[in-house]
């Protein structure tokens, strides 16, 4: 199982997340798609770190990605709740105030 297999899988997972973010209009599912994309990046970092295991740089970077993703999820869901209070829906098509 070469490193290319991991990279191909990570690109497929990133594509799944990107497709979900672009095609869905449910804000919750869009936030979950962002988590999918962040996770696929971690796979790439760990695979390259396994190729060059003399240091832990890739794993340290993946650690920070996990921490930032947790912060992003917390703030994103808080924004979702504030948005729901105003609009009574979480459809992102309803967020059109700045359009006009």
């Amino acid at each position, binding site marked *: 199982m070469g490193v290319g297999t991991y990279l191909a899988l990570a690109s497929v997972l990133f594509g799944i997340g990107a497709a979900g973010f672009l095609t869905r209009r449910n804000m919750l599912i869009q936030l979950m798609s962002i988590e999918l994309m962040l996770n696929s990046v*971690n796979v790439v970092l760990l695979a390259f770190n396994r190729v060059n295991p003399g240091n832990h740089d890739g794993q340290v970077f993946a650690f920070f990605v996990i921490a930032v993703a947790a912060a992003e999820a917390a703030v994103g869901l808080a924004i979702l709740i504030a948005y729901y209070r105003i609009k009574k829906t979480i459809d992102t098509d309803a967020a059109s105030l700045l359009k006009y």
Partner: protein
Amino acid sequence: MTSPGTILFVTTAIFAMAGGLVTISARRPLRAAIGLLVHIISLAGMFLTLDAQLLAALQLLVYAGAVVVLFVFVIMLIGPASEVGPIEGRFASRTLSLAVTIAIVLAVSTSLAYFDLPWGAPSEDFGTVEGLGMAIYSKALVPFEVVSITLLVAIVGAVAIARSRTE
């Protein structure tokens, strides 16, 4: 001749892709959250094949233990409105974005699939709590402290944003 690592990789890859597809295609957000949970747990198993034991544990703790539970809490808080109805119209932009994404992913993944580098020989403490902990606390101490401030700011910001405005 298939090694246990290969079997684990193939199993977790299949479950990760299935979980991701369930996440983006589910009508009900709770099913999407369960798909995300499957995806995250199988990725934690895949981290084990890459000798990242501490990160596999962190993945389970932070993602499966905290992020997915946060999603489920928000779904429960919002209630029936968390299910957005079927998408109407806008077929052009949706089809176009899906097609572009699939094209890019096919191009990138097929060109990467045969890229190969020899795996290095990991040292005794590669990926363990001791090895990764030493790397974080010696080489990345300042970013580590900055991340703790980031998390604190995120907590305060989340409370400030989500708080009810009624006095």
